[in-house]
């Protein structure tokens, strides 16, 4: 039995300390959570993601009050009720739509930062893996949310993506019907994706965010040079007010002050998009109500899925599906494919820096080609880009195996 100060006034600092150890919690998670000083604005992407997720939750709650998960009512509840009858309904919808798209841009920047600075190895593997789990869950969240306005693109993207579960030549039509709850997307389908979008997947995401943060606490955040810092020694210097000599800063308030500044810049851009350029996040095709009898001329996913869509598309059915599956899981394996023990920015790692930029350019090429109609030259380029993507991984294994130790 712990010692309780009987004279402490209820809810005073001492009283709370006895019961919740708030001073210790504050120290461990905030004022003495040490972050390397040698960082740039890319280190703020995590907090920007957290803030964007917050915006998605809040705007989502407001939308949820008026959305009707029914194949006959969904389209009008979004496009009429929310957009013209609910006060500021349009603002919540545009925030939700733009945030859902922009969050992936930030996720990709966050991931590529991690790859560039080798922040996925030597103690940081679980940070990387939990981050990848978040990426996959966010993808499922985005896809399920895309079904809800029940427009043409919701319906047909739903049809195409659930068809993938047929497993090519395995012809698992029973599995596809089980997922849809019907032969084609309909009411049962819409209801279950609604449930996934507003309950199950957000719960999983919140759990994973906690895990992602927890996995960061012991290995600490990486820094611009990949330097291994003696955190205890650096913290001692900082606390002795030798701030110039110390290599670390406390999370709160020093690191946070920079995060919040970067966040401010981000929000200026974000709300510019919300008010003046939201069309990129809301495909015009989806403003036509779902119609199972009329296929749109072009069916394509949202921009953040295009690169993996393009890995599926240029190949025949079965190899395409296998390539697609590889694309989905290969990033999870990055800490184990990279055989070098160097933790350093890519430009100090020899051939790795070339590998990194080829990966970036190839994924952008796949993204653009994934939206273009698969005809003529675009088809050829798509096939080449997809093959390059698949070859990148064995190449990474080889070049990191022979990488000079720093």
């Amino acid at each position, binding site marked *: 039995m712990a010692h309780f100060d009987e004279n402490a006034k209820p809810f005073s600092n001492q009283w709370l300390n006895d019961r919740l150890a708030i001073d210790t919690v504050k120290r461990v998670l905030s004022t003495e959570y040490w972050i390397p000083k040698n960082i740039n604005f890319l280190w703020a992407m995590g907090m920007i993601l957290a803030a964007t997720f917050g915006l998605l939750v809040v705007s989502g709650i407001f939308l949820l009050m008026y959305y009707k998960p029914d194949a006959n009512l969904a389209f009008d509840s979004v496009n009429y009720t929310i957009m013209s009858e609910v006060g500021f309904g349009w603002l919540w919808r*545009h925030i939700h739509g733009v945030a859902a798209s922009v969050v992936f841009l930030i996720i990709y920047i966050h991931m590529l930062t991690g790859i560039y600075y080798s922040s996925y190895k030597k103690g940081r593997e679980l940070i990387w893996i939990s981050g990848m789990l978040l990426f996959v869950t966010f993808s499922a969240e985005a896809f399920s949310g895309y079904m809800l306005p029940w427009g043409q693109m919701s319906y047909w993207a739903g049809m195409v993506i659930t068809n993938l579960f047929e497993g090519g030549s395995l012809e698992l039509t029973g599995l596809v019907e089980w997922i849809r709850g019907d032969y084609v997307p309909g009411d049962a389908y819409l209801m279950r994706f609604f449930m996934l979008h507003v309950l199950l997947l957000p719960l999983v995401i919140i759990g994973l965010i906690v895990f992602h943060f927890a996995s960061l606490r012991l290995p600490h955040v990486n820094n611009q040079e990949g330097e291994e810092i003696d955190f205890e020694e650096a913290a001692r210097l900082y606390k002795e007010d030798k701030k110039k000599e110390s290599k670390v800063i406390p999370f709160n308030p020093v690191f946070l002050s920079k995060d*919040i500044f970067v966040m401010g810049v981000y929000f200026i851009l974000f709300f510019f998009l919300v008010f003046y350029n939201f069309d990129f996040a809301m495909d015009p095709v989806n*403003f036509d109500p779902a119609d199972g009898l009329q296929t749109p001329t072009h069916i394509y996913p949202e921009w953040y899925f295009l690169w993996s869509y393009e890995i599926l598309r240029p190949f025949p059915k079965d190899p395409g599906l296998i390539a697609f599956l590889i694309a989905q899981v290969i990033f999870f394996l990055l800490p184990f494919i990279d055989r070098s023990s160097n933790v350093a920015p890519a430009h100090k790692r020899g051939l790795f820096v070339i590998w990194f930029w080829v990966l970036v350019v190839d994924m952008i090429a796949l993204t653009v080609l994934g939206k273009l*109609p698969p005809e003529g030259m675009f088809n050829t380029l798509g096939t080449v880009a997809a093959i390059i993507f698949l070859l990148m991984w064995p190449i990474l294994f080889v070049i990191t195996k022979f990488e000079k130790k720093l």
Partner: protein
Amino acid sequence: MREFKILAVVVFFTLLVYVGVEPFAHSQMHAHVEGHDFVYDGTADIEEANTRVEKTKEALEKAKERLTEVQSIENSPQEDLVKAQDAVTKQENALAKAEETVTHKKSFWANVASIAQLDVNITNGEMSFGTCIACHNGAGINMGGVIPPNLDRIGSLYDKNYLIALIKDPAMASNVDHKYANTMMHPMGSVMAMVTSDQQIADIVGYIMQNKVGELEPKAAFEEACVRCHAVRYAKVTQLGDTPEFKEEKDALAHKIKVLDEQALVEAYMGKLPPDLSMMIRARSPHYMETFVENPQTQLPGTSMPRVGLTKENYEKVKTYLEEVGDPSKPAREAIGPWVILFFVVFTILAYLWKKSQWKDLH
């Protein structure tokens, strides 16, 4: 400075993705259609007909090649030979027909242009206009697929050349002649038997342009031009116009039955119930909307939607109305936007000052 270099790299690749998946991809996905600025002189129609001739020529070449191929094979089955021969004949007939259409359209629109030059007699025009009232009587009764429109303000709403063409040959004017072997089958086809001389057409249109005019609000322009076929459920507008308020449910249901009956007639005429236009302003790009309304065949070849002949000014009104219904938040968006952005600019400046004060002793 390192931070700015990194920012430049991030911005560059972000813009590259944006340009690739938005403007570039869309330019590749949709064939570019040139508008004609709401001038109805048949240029677009003749171009279309010429394109069909070119396409038919290509198809004929292919059919001929196939025939030569079949003939060159020894002992090729009689069946294949007949099939290839039939294909050639079919394409030859199609080509003759396509060429005939070009000639027909050229002479038709040249004729329209000459009618537009004739001196008009308004009094004669008023007399002849009486023929129109037989059908365009405002009774709201469907005739041959649609309710004949009210003519009170058509002089303001539609283009003069278009009206001349419409009286001369309704199917040619609305560019749906491919639907009719004979224009007399068009709901307004009978006009061709009633108004027969070019002078008479010129007089009627002269009378219309002078007397059948009036100011049109966006909603009125939209209702007169589009509502005979299209409903706008978010504005409670059906093919019968505004839905009245009913106190009794059975009256509301009776009205609904009337709407369904009217829709069935429109559907039988058009082949498919024309889409509800509530959300159309967000479902199509501004360029698509403009070129589609000006000449539906350019964006949807073979569509049964007639060209309606709106002037540019009235197209803008129709667009305004569709925006009011389909994108009602636009004024609020434009009013609040700058303030929200200003808030975050101030927020960012304050955050920067705080950051500077926190980091000043660190280096």
